[in-house]
């Protein structure tokens, strides 16, 4: 059955790749159907697991065995991977259904669903692989699908650029992770996750440098995939892909792979306090910078992208504080409400004929009630509105854990992030859904709304409200913290979140807004704090310049020189063969004199 969960989307992808000329309805049936089958199988698995909570391994085949390195393709199911499975197939199925509506009429409909199905299969391999190398397999394959889907509309070079940027930036992290695997194998002699964790705890004492090195290298992979500092620059650009892609890959599943990796390898990170606190600091810095940047974006999807980055920052913060289950809990609720927000944004964008600038929207509350309510509920969850939203429970779990771990600074950052979150998410709502209607709005919609649009939104709305009450089975795999919930802190956290919303109303809700001229640090924040420019000048440009200078291959020069010298010598000798007798005699005489002279000298 576990195999079936992967096999269904994989077969879907293969069928869609192989069968050209399918009708749109058939493509939809295969593409959405395969994920739905996977979701149903996951539900059955969950049922079985709850009855008998026990980790199981399904052996597929021996990938390769070389000289002590045995790598099997095997699937490992425990509470953690089951939670991820639920998110991937459940939210994935809803997004697929939505995409069937969103992508209607696109000439690449079949290709789109083939890539999406392939992505789901790869993501499942990532979370189910019981071996770090099969995890890496999935890790790279989701990167590929992300590349293909960001650049899905490839006639526009900008989309291609965004796709390449995403792939290459994450590949930097992947390479660090690969080096981490080399090191782990060299030191521990295995890549099987459970064996690695067991041996690491046996061989390395707390705080051992090698444990730190391995953990930091894995963290490199995690920050790449999860778009955290310093490899975060690709995520806002990745919004070039179709909106369901952003919902599935760049909000709900792939970008959280880094969180999964660290939670999965937490036994290793526990060995190194330094690595663990680095995780926390990366999260703290990312969440602050990203929510700051979100405040100044004009593009509706970029706001959500920065918001995703900051929410993953919260997860990293939780991981750094050792609250792994809180991180995974937030991962799940975030998948619900962020997928909801992205899909609602997609509905808005489609209704406005691919308009993404929030300052050219306005007053959409009445015209798009479904999108409005989705945004309202999603944003409430995002800014952790107390008691009625899923985000409240998961975010509070993180903040309490951080508080209990004696990290007042992290807690402070987390709380100020919460303020910013409320501010930027309701800024969006006030500008887009309230105020007067603006921009080039035509009344008729290109896509009439359909059930395929409404069902996913409604289900996710429900989940964003009650998702906080789902008890996740990951708890039995990860060490549980049960931090105290001091009432004062709770009230403070609630007050800050509400304060952000109030501030948003005060600043953006009272009168119609116009696009502000961004100057100084605001412009810097809007550009994602200048990382793009920095990397371009520091890495990209010098490398390309070097390549361009050397286009003709300098190392070829010695050979060309050799050839030229030979030819020159050849010409010199030809010059001596003039055919004039006088010249020959003169040369002969000179030669004789030289010869006799040198004989005399010696």
């Amino acid at each position: 059955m576990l195999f079936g969960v992967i096999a269904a989307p994989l077969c879907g992808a293969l069928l869609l790749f192989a069968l050209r000329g399918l009708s749109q309805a058939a493509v939809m049936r295969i593409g959405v159907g395969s994920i739905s089958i996977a979701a149903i199988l996951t539900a059955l698995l969950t049922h079985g697991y709850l009855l008998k909570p026990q980790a199981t391994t399904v052996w597929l085949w021996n990938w390769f065995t070389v000289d002590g390195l045995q790598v099997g393709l095997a699937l490992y199911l425990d509470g953690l991977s089951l939670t991820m499975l639920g998110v991937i197939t459940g939210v994935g199925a809803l997004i697929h259904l939505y995409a069937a509506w969103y992508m209607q009429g696109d000439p690449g409909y079949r290709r789109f669903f083939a890539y999406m199905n392939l992505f789901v299969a790869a993501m499942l391999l990532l979370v189910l692989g019981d071996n770090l190398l099969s995890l890496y397999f999935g890790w790279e394959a989701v990167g590929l699908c992300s590349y293909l889907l960001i650049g899905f509309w490839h006639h526009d070079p900008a989309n291609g650029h965004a796709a390449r940027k995403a792939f290459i930036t994450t590949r930097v992290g992947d390479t660090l992770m690969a080096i981490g695997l080399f090191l782990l194998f060299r030191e521990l002699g295995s890549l099987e996750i459970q064996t690695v964790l067991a041996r690491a705890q046996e061989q390395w004492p707390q705080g051992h440098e090698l444990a730190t090195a391995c953990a930091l290298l894995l963290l490199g992979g995690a920050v790449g995939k999860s778009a955290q500092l310093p490899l975060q620059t690709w995520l806002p650009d990745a919004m070039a892909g179709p909106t369901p892609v952003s919902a599935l890959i760049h909000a709900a599943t792939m970008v959280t792979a880094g969180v999964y990796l660290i939670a999965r390898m937490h036994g290793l990170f526990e060995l190194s306090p330094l690595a663990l606190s680095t995780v926390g600091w990366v999260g703290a810095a990312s969440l602050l910078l990203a929510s700051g940047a979100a405040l100044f974006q004009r593009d509706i999807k970029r706001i959500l992208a920065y918001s995703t980055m900051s929410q993953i920052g919260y997860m990293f913060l939780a991981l750094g504080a050792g609250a792994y289950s809180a991180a995974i809990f937030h991962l799940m609720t975030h998948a619900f409400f962020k997928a909801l927000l992205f899909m609602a944004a997609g509905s808005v964008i489609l209704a406005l004929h691919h308009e993404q600038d929030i300052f050219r929207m306005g007053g959409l509350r009445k015209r798009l009630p479904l999108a409005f309510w989705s945004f309202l509920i999603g944003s409430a969850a995002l800014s952790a509105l107390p008691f009625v939203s899923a985000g409240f429970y998961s975010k509070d779990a993180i903040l309490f854990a951080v508080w209990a771990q004696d990290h007042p600074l992290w807690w402070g950052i987390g709380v100020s992030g919460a303020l910013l979150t409320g501010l930027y998410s309701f800024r969006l709502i006030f500008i887009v859904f309230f105020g007067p209607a603006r921009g080039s709005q035509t009344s008729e919609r290109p896509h009439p709304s359909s059930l395929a649009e409404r069902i996913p939104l409604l289900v996710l709305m429900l989940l964003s409200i009650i998702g906080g009450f789902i008890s996740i089975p990951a708890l039995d795999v990860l060490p549980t913290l049960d931090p105290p919930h001091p009432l004062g802190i709770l009230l403070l956290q609630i007050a800050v979140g509400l304060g952000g919303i109030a501030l948003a109303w005060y600043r953006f809700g009272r009168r119609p807004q116009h696009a502000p001229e961004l100057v100084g640090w605001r412009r810097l924040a809007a550009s994602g704090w200048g990382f793009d420019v920095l990397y371009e000048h520091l890495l990209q440009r010098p490398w390309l310049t070097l390549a361009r200078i050397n286009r003709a291959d300098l190392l070829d020069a010695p050979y060309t020189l050799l050839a030229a010298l030979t030819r020159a010598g050849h010409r010199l000798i030809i010059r001596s063969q003039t055919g004039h007798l006088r010249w020959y005699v003169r040369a002969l005489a000179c030669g004789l004199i030289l010869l006799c002279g040198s004989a005399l000298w010696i």
Partner: protein
Amino acid sequence: MDLGLWLPVLVLIPMAGGAMCWWTERFGLGWPRWIAAFCFGLDLILLLFLWAQADLHGGISHGEPVFLWEFERPWIPRFGISLHLGLDGLGLLLIGLTVVLGLVAVLCSWREIQQHVGFFHMNLLWNLAGVIGVFLALDLFLFFLLWEWMLVPMYFLIALWGHENPGGRGRVYAATKFFIFTQASGLIMLCAILALVFLHHQSSGLWSFNYIDLLQAELSAQAQYWLMLGFFVAFAVKLPALPFHSWLPDAHSQAPTAGSVDLAGVLLKTGAFGLMRFSITLFPEASAQFASTAMLIGVAGILYGACLALAQTDIKRFVAYTSISHMGFILLGLYAGNLMAMQGVVIQMLAHGISTGALFVLCGALYERIHTREFSRMGGLAKAAPKFATALMFFSLASLGLPGMGNFIGEILILFGAFQVAPLLTALAASGMIVGAVYALLLIQRSLHGPPGDLANMQDLVPREQGMMLALMALLLGMGLYPQPLLDTAHTTLQGLVYSFSGGGG
């Protein structure tokens, strides 16, 4: 029956077939093509038969190389020269690659080559017959002869059927450059061979060119080092390793498609094979001493090739530079000297042969249709030719080392192995994975995506090309998902190699 008798047949089939091709041209252009395809098909069947018969777990060797079958007949007994052939697991795999790519080369020339078709196929077949011979030869004289034998037909392939660059360096330039480079390095190898034979004669009083005898030659450390260097240079030029690589981009870009497939897919592998069979095995201590330098050259090649690939505007030159980058991995793995890295080298050779061969076939198909190799005139081809685009994308992704394809297994095993001995250098080599992604994606962007260029109305792949691409894709995927049969086949040979490299054999 002694299966060793089949070994010369493996060489003779394409040899005789080549002569037939030339002769039957008079009956029609179809004849040479079908004969060439038939010869490779026959060789392939023979090889599969041998593979099925092979006892791969036979002897685990300690020092003495173990061959599955040998064939030996005296030739010039006075100098101890014999027709001595031997097949081991490594040779089996590489000959398999040669034959498969030979078939591909014939198929991809079906429409491209319209002049002197018979002579063309004769050159093709003779060239590959030489290559197969090189993979089999166990007599150094015979080996040298076959080594040189490979060159001449390749020279003709480039010089006669190559592309002429308007305003650029032409096909004759490229062919001559290729010839001089390999010839000069061959000369160095000849000197090394002769010196080895003389030294062996001095110490044992026996004239012999026999590989097995020469393995026992007693040499001073210094002599070993110099001789090893002589062999190394010859093979490094062929591989090509860093300072000797500049013939490759020229030869590749001017060669006809079949020539490029041959060169990249097979001929480069003879360099790696030579290093394994001769340079390392004959002089293990000197090679171990030289290992760190060689690995450094390898890593430099990975990064240098990748960097230069970025700047190319000609699609075939581009692929040529990526080849240099990939061959760097091979050098790194070979001199890491452990089994894992060596296994990686073998997979990398096979996978690179197939993926780069396929890329050159696609470049050729593209040139046939739009008559340019310049990136600036491409773009947006994905829309006009989706099947072509799928294939090109598949093989570019393979070449960037995506898991699931053979190249990944090769690269990752090399890196795993090399990391055991040289962690920092390997970390540097691993950054080649990043640059690899940069150039592979750039290839996709420049040719397939973006706004359609003026040549976007391109005909898609025809069934012949589709079949070829599908078969190569299947091979590459099989290699990536279940490489174990290949690893097992090469295991015994490589274990012997590692054993001698680590000084166990003495």
